[in-house]
């Protein structure tokens, strides 16, 4: 669309009013025989308003989901629906055996379609971004000078010292990816915190935190060994909530960072 709108989705979240059509919706809908006609900016806004009232209690105002309620993140590819028609059906019928109830029968279909359009708009469609970097150049840096594969897997190849990036473009937008490269400590998922544990027999194990609870800790160390400790087995343990990834601000030029961002943002299931 040529819409360089790295913030467009954030505007939508706060109820922005500009209009554009989501060209991907009719294409998706055709596959299943449904066509969502409620696909304008106004529909997105009305869908967002309905979402805030009816859906955000479980899915969050930012639609990013909530472990406590079991509500999934709706801003990434949905695991239970692969088309607009599928999302429509879930909203209409609910998901049996879960907290996802159907919307009231009084809600007219057009309103549900607007909600579908709003949810679709949250998914960071790469077609909506005109990034300055080159995907090919970024891929070369990733496997070459950056040696990113020593810690990260892409497509089943790479290391285990960092997150699998095979589909990172579905869950991080370009701004976030850039920050991840320049300032890895900005956002560190608890899975990537490190723990240094000293057992009562003096053994010291250090690794990434796969799981931690009141009574135990599970780690993966730098050699990909898995460890499980009961806290009773430890003299002490230390938790570091920084990232083990270095900043690449000095390693790469600004345009190279752009290339890496373009490459990472291109990593999706289709690839």
């Amino acid at each position, binding site marked *: 669309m040529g819409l360089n709108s790295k913030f467009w989705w954030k505007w939508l979240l706060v109820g922005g009013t500009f209009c554009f059509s989501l060209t991907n919706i009719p294409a998706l809908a055709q596959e*299943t025989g449904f066509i969502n006609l409620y696909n304008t900016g106004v529909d997105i806004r009305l869908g967002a308003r309905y979402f805030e009232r009816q859906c955000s209690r479980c899915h969050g105002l930012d639609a990013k989901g909530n472990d406590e309620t*079991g509500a999934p993140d709706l801003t990434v*590819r949905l*695991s*239970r*629906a*692969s*088309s607009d028609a*599928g999302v429509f*059906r879930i909203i209409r019928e609910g998901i049996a*055996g*879960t907290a996802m109830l159907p919307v009231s029968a009084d809600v007219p279909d057009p309103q549900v379609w607007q909600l579908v359009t709003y949810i679709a708009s949250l998914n960071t469609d790469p077609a909506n971004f005109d990034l300055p970097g080159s995907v090919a150049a970024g891929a070369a840096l990733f496997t070459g000078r950056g040696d990113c594969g020593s810690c990260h*897997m892409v497509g*089943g190849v790479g290391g*285990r010292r960092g997150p*699998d990036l*095979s589909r990172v473009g579905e869950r991080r937008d370009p701004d976030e990816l850039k920050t991840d490269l320049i300032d890895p*400590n*900005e*956002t*560190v998922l608890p899975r990537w915190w490190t723990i240094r544990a000293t*057992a*009562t*027999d003096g*053994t010291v*194990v250090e690794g990434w935190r*796969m*799981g931690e*609870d009141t*009574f*135990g800790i*599970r780690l*993966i*160390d730098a*050699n*990909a*060994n*898995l*460890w*499980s*400790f*009961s*806290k*009773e*087995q*430890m*003299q*002490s*343990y*230390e*938790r*570091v*909530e*920084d990232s083990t990834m270095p900043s690449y601000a000095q390693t790469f030029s600004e345009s190279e960072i752009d290339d890496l961002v373009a490459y990472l943002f291109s990593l999706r*299931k289709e690839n």
Partner: protein
Amino acid sequence: MKRLAILLVSLSLAVQVSAQEEPFQTTMTPAFSPVTWERLLNAADEPENWLMYSGNLSSQRFSKLDQINTSNVADLELKWAYQIPVIDRAETVPIVVDGIMFITEAPSNVVAVDARTGRRYWRYDHDLPEDLRICCGRNNRGVAILGETLFMSTLDAHLVALDARTGNLLWDVAVADYAKGYSKTAAPLIVKDKVVTGVAGGEFGIRGFIDAYDPATGERLWRTYTIAGPGNPDVSSWSEDSWQTGGGASWITGSYDPELNQIYWGTGNPGPDWNGDARLGDNLYSDSALALNADNGEIEWYFQFTPHDVHDWDAIQVPILADINYQGRLRKVMMWANRNAFYYTIDRENGDFLVGKPYALQTWAQGLDENGRPIRVPGMFPTYEGIVVSPSIGGATNWWSPAFSPQTGLFYVNAFDGEQKFFKRDEEYTEGERFTGGGGQYIQPIDTYFSAIRALDPSTGDIRWEFPIQPRSSAGISTTAGNLLFSGSVDGYFYALDARTGEELWNVSLGARVHAAPMTFSVDGEQFVTIAAGNVVMTFGLKD
């Protein structure tokens, strides 16, 4: 402000844990070393682990562990439970490798947990399309492992490979097109350097097959159709082009004999299930045991249990392999209690029929001839009005794992003495739609009928003892060197019997249907028994 918050949480958190009175006794070792083919070949010799769906390649579901035995099994207590977050009916048999348990969940997910505590290391969630074609629930029965890679079937008929240390997806291949009615639920079987796997969809007019894949890349190495087609003289066992929608799904995990280099695998019903008018003939190789050359997949022999089946009696049972004394000679046999209510002992070198007898209520056959072919009772085919036949559609047994104990020499099966009225209907094939040609109904409430664990002598087919189960059971069985037999029931009991006599030794009410098979393992010298019931995986051990 956000930056400040990040700084605060970035500070190291040091926690001192007060020293315990009892210091940690065992040496801490990193869990999980690669599972080589050599380890899988000798899986029975590392009973602390449960390395594949049926325990070992001969699928005996017998463990050499004996810490829990007939003298102390009454002291079992719950050690931990793992709640599967997606509500469905758990049919999983976890595997355990060096203290790590891999559990599959409905619909097609995997979780890795500490086998001692049930606490999670990682999970993998598989994306599924919303228009799946599945006959019988959103099930998955388990993973296979080779090296550091797990292999899992998925409901959209894919085979996925996962890094066993992190759950990262390594590859994902479409085995078949789910939109045509194919799906996958069974644990794959590792045979040397191949991942061997079957397919479900027998109620959708598929043409079944068994495949082998390269574990490193997911490339398909061979495919053997379970329904004879053009170029194969056995296609003459199908009238006209009916082989094209002939069914013969392979929705179970097979077995392997390394000496004979043969893979043994069962095949499902011919399609459509209950109306055989358009598929006259024996319908090879539906309802059969197939022996495949492990290197190229070629069928070396087959044994068809139910020629021209019209009752949906899939030969989807786990083939149990053992060397037993038969008429004064040690024979390499395959033991098979079929859904059609007959028990068979077959020479697995060549498929010769040795022993065959009913092990459950049946009214459809007068017996078996000298080749093991059933002698049908006339007039037992489904009709438009309906006709009552035993066993029921679900069968005298089903996919529920049987077991064999080399210690007792007995074969154990969960048998159901049921009956049903079978109906025939006319049906045209439409791709991706159900293609069954009829159905069945109980003529009395199902709780009228009962199951039993039956212990058979494989050299004669005689029933040595039975343990009646009310109302009934759809659970698998395991036995141990502690002379124990573990199984469960639909009303939520998990119990232990004396494998020699059938005497009940222990039971616990788990509150939901047991629809999986138990398995046993040990960590740091302590034996555990695990069973899935309802939506929960539960692990039991002796009281501390």
